[in-house]
């Protein structure tokens, strides 16, 4: 039976179990002194029966799904001709792929590939057996555990406590997903990065000045043995983030101050949502805007002033990224400005300071930690932003501080190294994970500091 149908079957079982459990509870109650003698509501007994019917069966089904492919492949391997069994892991996975394609009907093997055709038939057979086995086990398990609980339903069974305990365990499991995700991220980038650092020493990667990850395919090719010094990539990332912040900080901060200290209520209600639209636009749209409109504009301007501007200049990418980050800076700083107590404002104005002086000498200094935290969050955003730089920044790693030249960034390199490549044993693809590791920990560091600063600051005035 297919997995979705199995789930549907479990759902039906659950409904049935609920009805039976509730009825049994009512029957028990009626026999022994009325409904008030029950420990829990009848529906709790129903729910308990549902838990018994579904939970073990569901766990088994999920586990089965996870284990099934590797077991099937193992069985398949045992059935293949001996010369195939001696192949390396990657070649063998190709054969398995072929077999699966035959099963899916995407591929018809030639006359000399009878082994594959036979294997495909075996695969279908094995899968059928596995499906039937799973269905049988699930049904059996559901029936047995339901029967066990059903028999134990008495007036004194504390059904509510058990059901609520299970529910609470489920809630805890859900909240632990955040931890699983973090562990998943760390493990996935760490493992591949360690494999990379076994090939390329970590200090070469972190301090090397030459980045050209294209590897020679044949041994006799010259010139492209691959160089993995990531400093130009980091420098490019910083350059673009710097340009973005030069655009975003003044505009974002000034708009935040204007909107929270000066603007009339009407202007605020119009301007704020409009600014937030900027934050809601997908980054791929900014990337298209940067590549199609802004980059040519800047290049033409450069030609006008006799400046050699690359058509993938860091300036274009940074500028558009800055625009994207404006609402981020402005909404974070506005929150912070709002948190400054009104009494500080009133005190300063009462001393005869103008509003500008109040802002300059009282509000901004008071809000500074929060603003710095917000800016740090924005920097982390700029560094991790992908689509704008993929579409508007360059691929070649130049170590330069000239904003008119093309530079590349960490995220661009990750995308170019991984898109279209399925091999996971070349340093080229593994380098992407090493870059990902650096990116993850760097942004994590920034976020951590920023969140701490903002939190400390909020507590100060609460």
């Amino acid at each position: 039976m297919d997995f979705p149908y199995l789930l549907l079957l479990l759902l039906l079982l659950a409904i049935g179990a609920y009805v039976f459990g509730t009825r049994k509870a009512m029957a028990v109650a009626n026999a022994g002194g009325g409904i008030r003698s029950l420990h829990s509501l009848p529906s709790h007994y129903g729910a308990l029966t549902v838990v018994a019917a579904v939970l073990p069966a569901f766990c088994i089904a999920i586990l089965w799904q996870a284990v099934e492919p590797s077991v099937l492949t193992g069985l398949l391997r045992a059935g293949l001709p001996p010369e195939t069994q001696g192949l390396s892991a990657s070649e063998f996975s190709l054969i398995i792929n072929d077999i699966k394609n035959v099963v899916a009907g995407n591929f018809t093997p030639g006359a000399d590939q009878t082994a594959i055709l036979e294997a495909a038939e075996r695969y279908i057979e094995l899968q059928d057996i596995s499906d039937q086995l799973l269905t049988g086990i699930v049904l059996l398990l559901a029936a047995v555990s339901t029967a066990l609980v059903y028999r134990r339903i008495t007036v004194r069974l504390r059904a509510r406590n058990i059901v609520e305990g299970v529910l609470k365990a489920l809630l805890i499991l859900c909240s632990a997903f955040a931890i699983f995700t973090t562990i998943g991220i760390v493990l996935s980038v760490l493992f591949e990065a360690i494999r990379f650092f076994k090939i390329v020493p970590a200090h070469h990667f972190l301090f090397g000045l030459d980045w050209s990850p294209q590897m020679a395919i044949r041994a006799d090719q010259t010139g492209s043995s691959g160089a993995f010094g990531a400093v130009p990539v980091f420098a490019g990332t910083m350059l673009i983030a710097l340009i973005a912040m030069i655009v975003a900080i003044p505009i974002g901060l000034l708009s935040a101050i204007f909107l929270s200290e000066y603007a009339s209520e009407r202007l605020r209600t119009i301007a704020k949502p409009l600014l937030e639209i900027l934050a809601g636009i997908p980054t791929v749209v900014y990337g298209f805007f940067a590549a199609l409109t802004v980059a040519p504009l800047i290049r033409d301007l450069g030609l006008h002033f006799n400046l050699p501007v690359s058509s993938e200049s860091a300036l274009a990418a940074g500028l558009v990224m800055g625009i994207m980050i404006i609402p981020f800076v402005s909404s974070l700083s506005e929150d912070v400005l709002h948190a400054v107590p009104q009494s500080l404002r009133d005190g300063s104005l009462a001393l005869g300071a103008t509003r500008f002086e109040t802002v300059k000498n009282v509000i901004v200094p008071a809000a500074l930690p929060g603003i710095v935290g917000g800016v740090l969050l924005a920097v982390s955003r700029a560094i991790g932003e992908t689509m704008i730089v993929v579409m508007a920044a360059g691929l070649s790693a130049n170590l330069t501080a000239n904003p008119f030249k093309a530079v590349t960034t960490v995220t661009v390199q990750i995308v170019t190294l991984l898109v279209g490549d399925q091999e996971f044993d070349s340093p080229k693809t593994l380098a992407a994970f090493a870059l990902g590791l650096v990116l993850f920990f760097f942004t994590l560091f920034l976020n951590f500091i920023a969140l701490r600063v903002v939190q400390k600051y909020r507590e100060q005035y609460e």
Partner: protein
Amino acid sequence: MSRSERPPIGETPQRSLTEKIGKDLPRRYRAEKRFRRLGLAAVIVALSFLVFLFGSIIGSGYTAFRQTYIELSVTFDEAAFASENLAAADFPGLVKQSLRSMFPEVRERSALKQLYRIVSPSAAYTLQDMVARNPNLIGSTQKIWVLADDDVDMLLKGQISSEGEEANRRLKDNQLAWITSLREQGRIETRFNTTFFTAGDSREPEQAGIRGAVMGSFFSLLITLLLSFPIGVMAAIYLEEFAPDNLWTNIIEVNINNLAAVPSIIFGLLGLAIFINFFGMPRSTPIVGGLVLTLMTLPVIIIASRASLKSVPPSIREAALGIGSSKMQTVIHHVLPLALPGMLTGTIIGMARALGDTAPLLMIGMIAFIVDIPGGVTDPATALPVQIFLWADSPERAFTEKTSAAIMVLLAFLIIMNAAAVILRKKFEIKW
């Protein structure tokens, strides 16, 4: 202040201070005004970026909603349908023949090639579909509107020029002459571009559509919604209502806050390494895309749901507990229904973000060129923002307007989702 410097009687020190301040006042007021203007200018600059962005997208994309068609009179020659198999018939030949009959003066091979090129290669499939639907057409002559080639389309929309050096032009002089003659005969028309909404991707701009990408996005978001909403809400309930204040809870909270700020491409790396390489899930499929987007959206939903739970006043909980309901019953029967609208709002906003996100999908291979429209979560697919990225990279001029049009569709979806969130919030917002 020494005795001798004391001001003469009648002039108090107060007044001189006022004078001093008064002297300074214009300068201070000027600074005040300057700063105010600067702030206003910042807001205006930010908003003008918005206008500029929208203007540039709409300006280069609105033409994509209309497409150029050419009328051919095709003779379905019986000789061409000698074989039983309909697909074996030479439909491209029929198109070519009808073009030749319209311009009988063209004889040279190279000129003929140019002539054939003004009609889209899809014309043959249009004919094939017609005959498959109505075999009685064989033997008759029909007037049929077929798609024009993208260069012709671009010319009529004024996006490529008919002037300048012939060698540098996409359309040559004789092609221009034929197009002019067709226009004079009323055989060229622009119509609403239905292909754009019904077709999958294509290498030919005039045959490319967003349906496949939209369906891919739909299936991915379906997975995301089905997983992230229940998990997010349950996590929020635990953290807000049940969690004791201990180290474990603290770790979870720090984790959620950090995950909300992790770059999306990192989630793509996670999907590639864990879901595809470790669990062996199929590449390029909405199910993997949906899982990755789920992990990305979860923190957003959890944070919004917690805020929503927090806004339910404690009196509700106390009342429920007071009449004897358990903690779990209190939450499920009384707190959750009141917090649900806020949670839904947060979920919609999270889904809107997931819809626009591209980078993690590139990592898990949803960037392949896929013509077929996906029919389920395990079919290879791409997504709307990835389609935009792919088209933006295509060199053909006609793909630029398609890209802009696809962006307009994406933005329309986002606006609808955000508007729904705002309406939901307005409608169910309770001021306690």
